[in-house]
């Protein structure tokens, strides 16, 4: 058999292939030759063959049949074989194949080899792709090499240890002793890898972190001062050709040290103080003309912002970022914007100073920079700069790439809502967004906008006029058309009567308005939802317009046979309104009332006002309530005979085991538990669901205004407790009661504790109260939330117990609450 061709020969040959098919043929031929060579167990050419295989593998061809051969090469005595063998192992093997475990013994032997370059190969392979099993087996060897005086091996052992720790975190402890004098080395390789090892340990284990922050027992030096010293030497020392990069001494090491300092200084005052000076020094003395210097400054800024640095240092850091923003190098600008985005919440004022530079970045050519500039701009909008910022952002919306438009539009709406200087400005801004980026506006913006418009009562005429003009020319942008249709339907009468005050009123006839709405209905560009809006709008106009009611009737009847089911249903129902229910039509199609603002975060707000989600508030919860359940629970139990009581502590309600018999029921037995005829709920205006289109998506909790009346549950001795109710639409068995306790006497009531008990079929959860002091003269209240689960929809009853201190004496009272309105539990 002729000798297998050399690697370079093969590469040259394959590169001459003119087509993919030709290449494949050559590869297949060579693979066959290699396979038979492997079968012959040829030691001489194994290395060459595996090398060729690795090349073909890089081209994308399968090479798994070479895996075992790599192991044989590793086991060989020749250095060339080992080199290729280990490379092959790293490229072809991974921990998914059981084969890799066969390497373990070879690596172990090579870790103890007499030649350091062989040891190096073994360490490198283990450190790059060692599996957890291998790491466990060989950690001891690595640890040994970590203590050697050979810096070539020591640096490699350190990084190998990092990999071992990442794979098997429990082994971290065993490397701890070896780290003791790692930083005493002069060799930069060892220093760099040691810092990496220490960083890994500190990041992974809070115990390690605490250990490294403290004074170490054996050596008298702490880690932070040691690092500071090394860093100082790097900065102050003269030119060192070996580690110099553009005039800076070992920037890689400087950056790693700064990163380790960040971890050590985070949330630790002492460490932060110890590194204050060096950070200031690095920040002011580093050359900024080249990327290297800026890399170090960048890391310094990250560290300053993350530790407990003094304010002067923080301002320095933000100013560095501000300078970065003006740098010609776009990479530096990108990095600056990213960092500013991270700090804008904590150091808002400092970042505000660079606002104009940030806004300029909106015009940058790079997409990533633009995106960051946009995010940062939104973060910087406040009441003072909103007009100017909006101008820039609207201009940006106009000219930016489509992928930004949705986010930008949403951001503008949010900012406008928060900081609008006037209603007119707000409406104008919305109009501008709708007309500029109308098709990119998110779907949920439409109901929000409609609510906003409804609530700006004095702007109705102006708004509808502007919207009418906007869709007159172009009705392809769906969100715009939807909002416009809704408004025209609502305020069409204002439109035709020319009542606009803000600008020149236009002359529009009823027919012209119907023309545009019908065009929307007919147009191919209109989405089904949009058509729905248009049809409803036309219908509403039947009560607002005087001359064109017949036309409206005709349109509505046509769509009674529309293919679109949604449209058809609407049309049929509207038809019915015209025919059978004409007497109800005016009432049904009345002008929308001003809507209660329901934030989309409704439910969570209820929870948050009582601090349940905030651990900090739990800590400040008045201590007495923690002690009370122990004794007072028993009292309540005695009085009420074993009800399910939830303790005041706002954790998951602990349910007492159900008491035998129905003692509570007996106590409350004189009350009428079984249904006395419940008064029919007040007839709500039967608004068919489709007329609610365009309002905010159904809130999860009904508004208080929507009609569960609140009650006064207790009113004695100057202490008044009111209950207000909310029901969950998604879970009808849950009632949320918010209690408000007020004090009309002339002295405060302190240590106030509210406890409640309900019958067994209910479940109760008490969240933590807003405070334990009710100030005098009704000048403040305590709020507390109770959640009641009532799966059997039984009539709600409650016994409450109140304890507080007043006028120097302890007060206590029990009461029953049985005036719960039916809507709160039915």
């Amino acid at each position: 058999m002729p000798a297998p061709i050399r690697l370079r020969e093969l590469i040259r040959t394959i590169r001459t292939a003119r087509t993919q098919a030709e290449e494949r043929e050559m590869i297949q031929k060579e693979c066959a030759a290699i396979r038979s060579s492997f079968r012959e167990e040829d030691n001489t050419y194994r290395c060459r063959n595996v090398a060729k295989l690795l090349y073909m593998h890089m081209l994308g061809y399968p090479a798994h049949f070479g895996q075992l051969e790599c192991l044989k090469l590793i086991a060989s005595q020749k250095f060339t074989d080992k080199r290729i063998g280990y490379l092959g192992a790293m490229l072809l093997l991974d921990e998914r194949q059981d084969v890799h475990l066969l390497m373990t013994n070879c690596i172990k032997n090579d870790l103890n080899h007499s030649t350091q370059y062989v040891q190096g190969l073994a360490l490198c392979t283990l450190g790059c792709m060692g599996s957890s099993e291998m790491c466990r087996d060989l950690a001891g060897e690595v640890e040994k090499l970590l203590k050697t005086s050979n810096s070539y091996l020591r640096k490699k052992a350190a990084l190998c240890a990092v990999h071992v720790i990442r794979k098997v975190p429990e082994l971290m402890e065993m490397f701890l002793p070896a780290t003791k004098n790692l930083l005493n080395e002069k060799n930069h390789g060892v220093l760099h890898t040691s810092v990496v090892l220490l960083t890994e340990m500190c990041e992974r284990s809070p115990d390690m972190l605490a250990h490294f922050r403290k004074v170490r027992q054996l050596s008298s030096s702490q880690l932070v001062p040691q690092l500071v010293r090394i860093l100082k030497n790097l900065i102050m020392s003269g030119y060192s050709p070996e580690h110099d990069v553009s005039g800076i001494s070992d920037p890689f090491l400087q950056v790693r040290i700064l990163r380790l300092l960040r971890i050590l200084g985070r949330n630790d005052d002492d460490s932060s103080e110890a590194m204050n000076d060096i950070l200031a020094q690095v920040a002011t003395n580093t050359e900024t003309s080249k990327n290297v210097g800026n890399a170090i400054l960048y890391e310094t800024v990250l560290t300053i912002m993350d530790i407990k640095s003094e304010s002067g240092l923080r301002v320095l850091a933000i100013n560095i970022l501000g300078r970065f923003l003006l740098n010609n190098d776009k990479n530096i600008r990108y990095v600056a914007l990213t960092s500013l985005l991270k700090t804008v919440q904590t150091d808002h004022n400092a970042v505000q100073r660079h606002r104009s530079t940030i806004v300029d970045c909106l015009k940058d050519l790079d997409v990533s920079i633009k995106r960051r500039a946009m995010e940062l701009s939104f973060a910087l909008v406040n009441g003072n700069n909103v007009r100017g910022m909006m101008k820039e952002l609207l201009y940006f919306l106009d000219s930016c790439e489509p992928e930004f438009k949705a986010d930008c539009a949403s951001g503008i709406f949010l900012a406008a809502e928060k900081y609008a200087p006037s209603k007119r400005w707000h409406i104008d801004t919305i109009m501008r967004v709708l007309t500029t980026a109308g098709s990119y506006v998110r779907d949920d913006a439409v109901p929000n906008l409609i609510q906003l418009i409804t609530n700006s009562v004095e702007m109705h005429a102006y708004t509808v006029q502007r919207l009418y003009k906007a869709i007159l020319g172009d009705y392809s942008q769906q969100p715009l058309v939807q909002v416009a249709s809704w408004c025209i339907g609502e305020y069409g009468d204002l439109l035709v009567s020319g009542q606009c005050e803000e600008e020149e009123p236009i002359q529009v006839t009823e027919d012209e308005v119907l023309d545009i709405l019908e065009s929307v209905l007919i147009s191919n560009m209109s989405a089904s939802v949009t058509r729905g809006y248009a049809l409803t709008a036309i219908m509403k106009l039947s009560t607002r317009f005087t001359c064109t009611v017949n036309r409206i009737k005709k349109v509505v009847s046509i769509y009674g046979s529309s293919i679109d089911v949604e449209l058809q249903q609407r049309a049929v129902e509207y038809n019915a309104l015209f025919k059978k229910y004409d007497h109800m039509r005016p009432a049904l199609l009345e002008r929308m009332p001003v809507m209660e603002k329901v934030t989309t975060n409704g439910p969570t707000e209820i929870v948050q006002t009582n601090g349940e989600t905030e651990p900090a508030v739990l800590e400040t919860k008045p201590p007495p309530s923690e002690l009370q359940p122990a004794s007072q629970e028993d009292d309540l139990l005695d009085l009420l005979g074993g009800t399910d009581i939830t303790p005041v502590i706002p954790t998951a309600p602990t349910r007492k085991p159900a008491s035998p018999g129905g003692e509570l029921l007996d106590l409350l037995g004189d009350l009428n538990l079984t249904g006395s005829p419940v008064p029919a709920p007040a007839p709500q205006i039967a608004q068919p669901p489709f007329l609610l289109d365009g309002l905010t998506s159904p809130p999860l909790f009904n508004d208080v205004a929507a009609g569960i009346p609140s009650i006064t549950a207790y009113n004695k001795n100057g202490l008044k407790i009111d209950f207000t109710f909310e029901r969950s639409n998604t879970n009808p068995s849950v009632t949320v009661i918010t209690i408000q306790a007020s004090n009309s006497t002339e002295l405060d009531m302190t240590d106030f504790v509210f406890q409640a008990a309900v019958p067994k079929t209910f479940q109760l959860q008490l969240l933590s109260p807003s405070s334990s002091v009710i100030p005098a003269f009704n000048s403040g209240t305590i709020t507390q939330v109770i959640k009641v689960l009532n799966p059997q929809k039984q009539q709600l009853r409650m016994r409450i117990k109140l304890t507080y201190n007043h006028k120097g004496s302890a007060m206590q009272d029990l009461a029953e609450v049985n005036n719960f309105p039916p809507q709160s539990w039915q």
Partner: protein
Amino acid sequence: MRFMLLFSRQGKLRLQKWYLATADKDKKKMVRELMQVVLARKPKMCSFLEWRDLKVVYKRYASLYFCCAIEGQDNELITLELIHRYVELLDKYFGSVCELDIIFNFEKAYFILDEFVMGGEIQDTSKKSVLKAIEQADLLQE
């Protein structure tokens, strides 16, 4: 660093070094995807981009793209320096390195990289030291 790729303008892979165990299939997919993204970038754009949950730092040297995927807390600017240092090492070793050198001597490119970076982190910050180690190891080759 999670991985480093070297590829040509035509999308031919010249070197791939992975520092996190990944299945072969996934590697192929990621390489294809990332090459597409990087090759689509215009010259005026910055050297950083977000890709999946990683940050990608890339730089073009003549006909070769050097591409590193780093994690959230890694420093992008110093990664650029890392790439530059690797190119300098190759340059010193091959004497004015060009793409052909890396094609025909890919195993040496790997050896040099493995002497400079291990497990995604730099082993030695001294150019001289790395080159000397490679030199000595080459002498051991039979």
